[in-house]
C-alpha cells in the first residue's frame, strides 16, 4: 500500500522512537497491564503504524463504498444518503398492549417495527397449552392466531413501515399470519416489507428455541426463500444472526465466524434445491451484536462485509446486490447491569456508536432497565433518543466509513478475517456446519468462552463498573414495567371463542392438506397460508409439523 522507501524511513524513525522515547518512558511509567487483549483474546499493541497494513492493497482490499468488496460500506452514500432504521425490538403481554407500545415508539420517531414474541409463541404453542403456563406475555407478545396478528397491527400503516419478527422454529407460520393480515387489509403481499429471523442453525447453537430437527427445518427455510422470491419480493426471508451466539458468551471472532458459516450453509442448501444464487441472495440479511470493545466491534462489521462478498463471489453470485451484506444490530443485552442501571445508558451509547461507525443498516438500542425487566416507556424512549442524538448531533454520519484507513482498524479487520477463516477450516474438517452442531463444536466453544469471561470478572481481571468495582450500596429505583394481570385469561378465552366460531370443516381440511404436503416435498407456504386464513392457531399448525417432522433433542454440552 505504501511506498517501500517511505516505509523504510518510517521504520527507522519508529525504531528510534521505540529506543529513545517509548522504552525510556515505560521504565519509569509502566503501562497498566502486561498484556492488553481484546474480548477475542487478540493481543493489542501500543501503537499501530503504516507497516501494520502495508501488505494490503487499497483497490483490492478496501475499495469504495457501494462496490466489491464492500469493506467501506454497501452503498455509495451510506448514512449520508439515508440513516439506519431505528428499530426497537419490543413486545409483551397481549397484542393490545404491544399495539399501544408500537404506536408510542412510532410516535417518538422510530422508523421500523420489530416484534418480540413470548416463549410459548417462539416454541409454537398456544397460550392455553399446558407448557405455556406462567410464560404468557412475559418476554414478548403472545400470538396464537391470525386474529392476534390483526390486533397487533391494528391502525398501524404496514404498507409504509417495515416489520422485523424475531421468530425461528414456527417462522413460516407467523410470517403466514403477517401476510394474511396484510392481504385482509387490502395490502398486496408484493408490496409489504420486513424480515423474519428464521435462522434455525443459530437456535441449535445458541438461542435454543428450536422445534424440529435440522433437515426439515432447513426445508422450511428454503421454502420461505422460494416463496418470498416469487410472491413477497420486498421481504427478507432470513436474518442470519450472530447476536444470540454472542449473548451466549462467544467472542467477537466466534460471533463473526459462526454467523457467516451459518449463512454459507443456508446459501448452499438453497442452491442444492436448485434456486439461483442471484435470485435469493439479495434477500438474505444479517443480525449482529454490538458489544463493549468499541474498535473490535467496528472491525468485526467491516470484516463481515468483506468476507461475505468474497465467499458469495466464490459461489458464483454475479449481481452486486447478492454480494452486499445488509445487517441489523442490537446493543449487547448481556453487558447490561442490574446495579446502577442508569449507567447502562452510557454503555448502550458506546455500543450504538460502534454499530453506526461499522455501517449498520438498522439498529436497536437496549433500555437501561433490561437487566431487571422489559423496558418501561421512559427507558425505551431514552434508548431511542440515544440513536437520534448520534444521528443528529454527533457529526459521525457526515462522511462514509470515517475510520477507514486507521492503522489499527484496518489491521484488526484483517486479523479478524484471518481468524474467521481458521474457524471455517475447523468446521469443514468436522464435516460441515450441521455435523459440527451434532458434535457440539460450536456449543463447546461458546461455553468455554463464556466460562473464561466469567472467571475474569470473578477474579477482578476484567472490571465491570458497578459490579466488581465502583460499587455502591443501593436501592434499585427504576420503574419496572408492569403488565396486565388479566391478559392471560383474556387470551385463553379469545382462543376458545376463535376455535368455536371458525369454519371448522374448512380448518380441518386445510390442516390435513398441510400434513400431506409436509410428508412430501412441495413448498409448504401456500398450505400454511390456507391454514392461517381459516384461523388455525399457531399451536394447531405447529403440531401437524411436529407430528411429521419430529422434535429436536440437543446434545448435552456444558
Amino acid at each position: 500500500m505504501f511506498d517501500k522507501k517511505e516505509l523504510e524511513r518510517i521504520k527507522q524513525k519508529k525504531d528510534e522512537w521505540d529506543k529513545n522515547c517509548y522504552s525510556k518512558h515505560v521504565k519509569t511509567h509502566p503501562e497498566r497491564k502486561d498484556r492488553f487483549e481484546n474480548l477475542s483474546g487478540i493481543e493489542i499493541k501500543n501503537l499501530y503504524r503504516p507497516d501494520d497494513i502495508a501488505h494490503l492493497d487499497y483497490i483490492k482490499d478496501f475499495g469504495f463504498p457501494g462496490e466489491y468488496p464492500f469493506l467501506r460500506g454497501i452503498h455509495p452514500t451510506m448514512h449520508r444518503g439515508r440513516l439506519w432504521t431505528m428499530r426497537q425490538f419490543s413486545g409483551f403481554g397481549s397484542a393490545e398492549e404491544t399495539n399501544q407500545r408500537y404506536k408510542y415508539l412510532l410516535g417518538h420517531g422510530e422508523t421500523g417495527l420489530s416484534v418480540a414474541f413470548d416463549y410459548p409463541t417462539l416454541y409454537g404453542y398456544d397460550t392455553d397449552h399446558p407448557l405455556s403456563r406462567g410464560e404468557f406475555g412475559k418476554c414478548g407478545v403472545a400470538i396464537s392466531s391470525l386474529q392476534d396478528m390483526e390486533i397487533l397491527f391494528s391502525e398501524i400503516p404496514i404498507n409504509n413501515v417495515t416489520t422485523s419478527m424475531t421468530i425461528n422454529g414456527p417462522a413460516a407460520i407467523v410470517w403466514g399470519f403477517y401476510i394474511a393480515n396484510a392481504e385482509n387489509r387490502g395490502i398486496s403481499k408484493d408490496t409489504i416489507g420486513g424480515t423474519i429471523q428464521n435462522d434455525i442453525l443459530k437456535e441449535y447453537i445458541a438461542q435454543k428455541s428450536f422445534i424440529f430437527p435440522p433437515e426439515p427445518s432447513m426445508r422450511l427455510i428454503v421454502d420461505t426463500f422460494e416463496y418470498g422470491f416469487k410472491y413477497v419480493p420486498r421481504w427478507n426471508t432470513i436474518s442470519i444472526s450472530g447476536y444470540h451466539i454472542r449473548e451466549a458468551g462467544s467472542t467477537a471472532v466466534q460471533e463473526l465466524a459462526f454467523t457467516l458459516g451459518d449463512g454459507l450453509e443456508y446459501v448452499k442448501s438453497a442452491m442444492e434445491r436448485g434456486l439461483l444464487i442471484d435470485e435469493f441472495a439479495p434477500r438474505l440479511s444479517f443480525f449482529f451484536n454490538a458489544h463493549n470493545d468499541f474498535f473490535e466491534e467496528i472491525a468485526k462489521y467491516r470484516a463481515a462485509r468483506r468476507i461475505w462478498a468474497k465467499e458469495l463471489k466464490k459461489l458464483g453470485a454475479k449481481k452486486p446486490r447478492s454480494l452486499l451484506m445488509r445487517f441489523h444490530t442490537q446493543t449487547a443485552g448481556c453487558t447490561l447491569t442490574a446495579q446502577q442501571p442508569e449507567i447502562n445508558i452510557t454503555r448502550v451509547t458506546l455500543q450504538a456508536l460502534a454499530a453506526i461507525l461499522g455501517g449498520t443498516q438498522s439498529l436497536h438500542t437496549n433500555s437501561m432497565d433490561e437487566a431487571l425487566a422489559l423496558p418501561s416507556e421512559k427507558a425505551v424512549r431514552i434508548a431511542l433518543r440515544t440513536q437520534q442524538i448520534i444521528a443528529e448531533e454527533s457529526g459521525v454520519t457526515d462522511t462514509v466509513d470515517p475510520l477507514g484507513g486507521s492503522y489499527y482498524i484496518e489491521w484488526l479487520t484483517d486479523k479478524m478475517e484471518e481468524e474467521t477463516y481458521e474457524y471455517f477450516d475447523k468446521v469443514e474438517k468436522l464435516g460441515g456446519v450441521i455435523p459440527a452442531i451434532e458434535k457440539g463444536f460450536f456449543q463447546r466453544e461458546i461455553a468455554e468462552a463464556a466460562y473464561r469471561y466469567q472467571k475474569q470478572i470473578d477474579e477482578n481481571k476484567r472490571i465491570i463498573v458497578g459490579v466488581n468495582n465502583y460499587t455502591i450500596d443501593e436501592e434499585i429505583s427504576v420503574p419496572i414495567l408492569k403488565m396486565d394481570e388479566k391478559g392471560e385469561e383474556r387470551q385463553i378465552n379469545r382462543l376458545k371463542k376463535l376455535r368455536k366460531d371458525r369454519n371448522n370443516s374448512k380448518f380441518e381440511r386445510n390442516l390435513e392438506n398441510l400434513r400431506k404436503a409436509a410428508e412430501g416435498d412441495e413448498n409448504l407456504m401456500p398450505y400454511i397460508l390456507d391454514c392461517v386464513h381459516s384461523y388455525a392457531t399457531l399451536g394447531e399448525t405447529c403440531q401437524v409439523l411436529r407430528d411429521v417432522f419430529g422434535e429436536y433433542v440437543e446434545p448435552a454440552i456444558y
Partner: protein
Amino acid sequence: MNDIAANVLKGDPRSIARLITLAENNDPIAANAMKTIHPKTGNAHVIGITGVMGSGKSTLIYELTREYRKKGLKVGIIAIDPTSPFSGGALLGDRIRMMELATDDGVFIRSMGTRGMLGGLTSAVYDVVEILDASGKNIVLVETVGVGQAEVDVIKIADTTLVVLVPGLGDSIQTIKAGIMEIADIYVVNKADRSGVEQTLAEVESLVEIACINKDRKIPVLATISKENKGIVELIDEINKHREHLKKTKTFEAQRRKRYEAELVEIIRKRLMNFIFDESTFKGKVESLIDQISKKELDPYTAADEILGKILK
C-alpha cells in the same frame, strides 16, 4: 431411619435415594441396612454399558429403558461420570438424555461421580446395584465412564457387559484393542447412520472372530441408531440370549460370585484405608511417617511394614 431398609424393599424412591447417599458416604447406617437388603437381591439382571465418549451411551440407555418399560419391567439406572481429581467435584450430566423418564415411577435414575476411584466405576456402585435390585427393579443399567484402556471394572459388577462404539473410530479401535475391547459380551455400533459404519462393523467382526475361536459363544456385533430407536429390540433380544447362555452354562453363578468377591474386597479396602488415613487413631502416626519419607529418613516399604504390623498384630 430403622425402617429405611424396609421402605427400600417397598420401592419408596425417597428411601432408595437416601440409602444410596448413606452408602456413598460410608455411613454405618448403610452397612446396617445392607444386612436386611442383601438377602433380597439376586433378581435383577445387571447390564454394564461402557464405551468411548460420544458413542451415545446415554441415549442408548434411554431407548433400552423405554423398551423394557413397554414390557412392564422396572428399571434402575446408575450413570457414572468422572470426579475431577483437582476439585473433587463432578458434572453429572448423563440424566439430560433421560429426562422424559424422570416422572415414570417404574424407573429410578441415580447419577454418581467416580470419587477418586479408577476403573470407570465408583466405590459404592456395588451397594447401589443391590439397593436397586432389592427395591424391585428387574433391570439395572450401569453406565460407566468408559474412555479407554483402564476403565474395565464394569465386568466386576455386570452380568452382561455392552461395549458401545461409533463408526469412524478407525485407528481408535486398534488403540483400544486391549482393555475395553476385551470385556464385551455384546458389541454395539451406535450412530450407525454415520459414514464408516460398514468398516467399523467389519473391524469389530474380525476382532470377534479371532477372540472367539474355541469359545462356546460368539460375541454378537449389533448396529443401532439409538436416537431413532433402531436396533433396540434386537439388542434386548441379545441381552436376554446372553443371560440364558450364562444360566445354561452355569457361568451365571460363577460371575455373580466374582462380583461379591469384588464387593467384599472393596468394603475391606475402604475400611482399611479409612482406618489408616482418616481415623484419628492412626492419622498422626501416618502423617509423621510421610514426613520422614519426604526427608529420606525412611523408605516407603519400611513405613508400610510399621503400619501393617500394628494392624495385623
